[in-house]
């Protein structure tokens, strides 16, 4: 019963939606029936179109994430470990962070056109800051008494980083990772919807031109699914790396 309970309302909504559409209460122009969305999914999978679009979107997301996340993580490490670096860099990074990266879209299109670079650049910019801030603060908030202990116990700088500072910062880094994944999909959706010639966003916008509401809804659902998938992976990673953390012990969340 406990496992069924959370699913009752979503299933009911889906059922009413299907009935409403098939009885003609909801016009297909407003919202297609769930079954039609499913049919569109099957059709596009068969033609191979869907896989192509998904692959393009996935590549953009992962390359952008790798670049932006990598830069953010490294900056966070350097600034967290060396006060001189944080003095030099942190306020500049904070200033850039305050520019909403999506506001740069017109400029980015001027720089890169509608090619892949534009999308990757935007995604990288979007994921960089959450990773940076949480890595930086994660390192800064590592308990000083652990560091003192490590010095008494003869750990060298590398061991101190690897055994004490990085694991201590990891819970915070994961918070950044999950925020960044959210930003990654959001940025990608906006970028693909505005200017693209392939990808899930393009597929949905293209379908709009032909009034194919089923494909539009399918695109939205795919984004939701990919977002959820990324979050699940992050959560699993967290669970295996933060086994020691009270939140992940048996009986915890």
């Amino acid at each position, binding site marked *: 019963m406990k496992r069924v309970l959370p699913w009752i309302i979503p299933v009911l909504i889906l059922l009413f939606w299907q009935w409403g559409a098939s009885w003609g209460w909801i016009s297909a122009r407003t919202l297609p029936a769930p079954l039609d969305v499913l049919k569109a999914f099957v059709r596009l999978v068969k033609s191979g179109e869907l896989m192509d679009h998904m692959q393009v979107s996935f590549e953009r997301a992962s390359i952008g994430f790798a670049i932006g996340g990598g830069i953010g993580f490294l900056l966070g490490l350097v600034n967290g470990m060396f006060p001189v670096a944080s003095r030099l860099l942190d306020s500049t990074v904070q200033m850039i962070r305050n520019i909403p990266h999506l506001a740069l879209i017109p400029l980015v299109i001027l720089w890169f056109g509608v090619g892949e670079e534009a999308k990757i650049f935007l995604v990288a910019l979007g994921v960089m800051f959450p990773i940076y801030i949480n890595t930086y603060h994660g390192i800064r908030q590592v308990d000083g008494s652990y560091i003192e202990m490590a010095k*008494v116990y003869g750990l060298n700088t590398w061991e101190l980083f690897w055994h004490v500072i990085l694991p201590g910062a990891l819970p915070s880094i994961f918070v950044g990772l999950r925020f960044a994944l959210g930003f990654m999909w959001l940025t990608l959706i906006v970028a693909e919807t505005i200017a693209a010639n392939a990808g899930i966003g393009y597929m949905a916008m293209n379908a709009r031109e032909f009034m194919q509401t089923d494909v539009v809804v399918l695109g939205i659902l795919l984004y939701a699914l990919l977002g959820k998938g990324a979050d699940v992976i992050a959560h699993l990673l967290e669970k295996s790396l933060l086994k020691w953390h009270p939140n992940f012990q048996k009986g915890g969340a």
Partner: protein
Amino acid sequence: MVTFQMENIHKSFENHGLSRKVITGIDLEVQAGEFVAIVGRSGCGKSTLLRLVAGLEQIDEGQLKFHHGDEKNNGIRVMFQDSRLLPWRKVWQNVALGLKKDGKSKAEQVLEEVGLTPWKEDWPLVLSGGQRQRVALARALVHEPGLLLLDEPLGALDALTRIEMQQLIERIWQQRHFTALLVTHDVAEAIALADRIILIDEGKIKLDVAVNLSRPRKRGSSAFAELEAKILNELLGLEEETRSPQHLQPVAGIS
């Protein structure tokens, strides 16, 4: 084994532009294999003294000389009041911290010694306070230190666990032969463990007494109680004349 010698040590801390003198001229010599306890009120500078020996604070004035004995057993390790176990390392991994080779087997051996073998694969967060301090003790012992500095290691434990831990520390000290410096606010603990008790007040040594009781020491014995009363009176600043046995009992019972 490691021994050390302090000559006219001074230490003060700067805080909001104010300089506060914590240690004002301490001379102390600790022999090889000796167990020395430092007692005093909170804020008397006893922990600072230990941190100076550990190298965690810099000496302002005076000299601190170490004499390292043989090749083996010449390290200095600290056991802190808060166990400072890394929560992301299992019990045995915490013990093996900083070991270059044979970490696991050495750690297991010491964990056996402190009676924690069944918990070696657990995370520190699931242990009780007493167990955590045992792990912290094992972590210090695994390096075979020549000098073990104990900074109120049992201060946060309940009375019963505390006595158990004192017995454990005494047993291990007798077996392993290292020099030990214990900082505590518990006079009974100091008498139970130490060869010599140093009382510090306002940054100076006020009393330096040898404890000539045979081990293991019985807390109920009259010699124990007498010494405890003497040190407590010194601590509380009571005059010799005002002392009487009727006064003493409740005061001694506080500790």
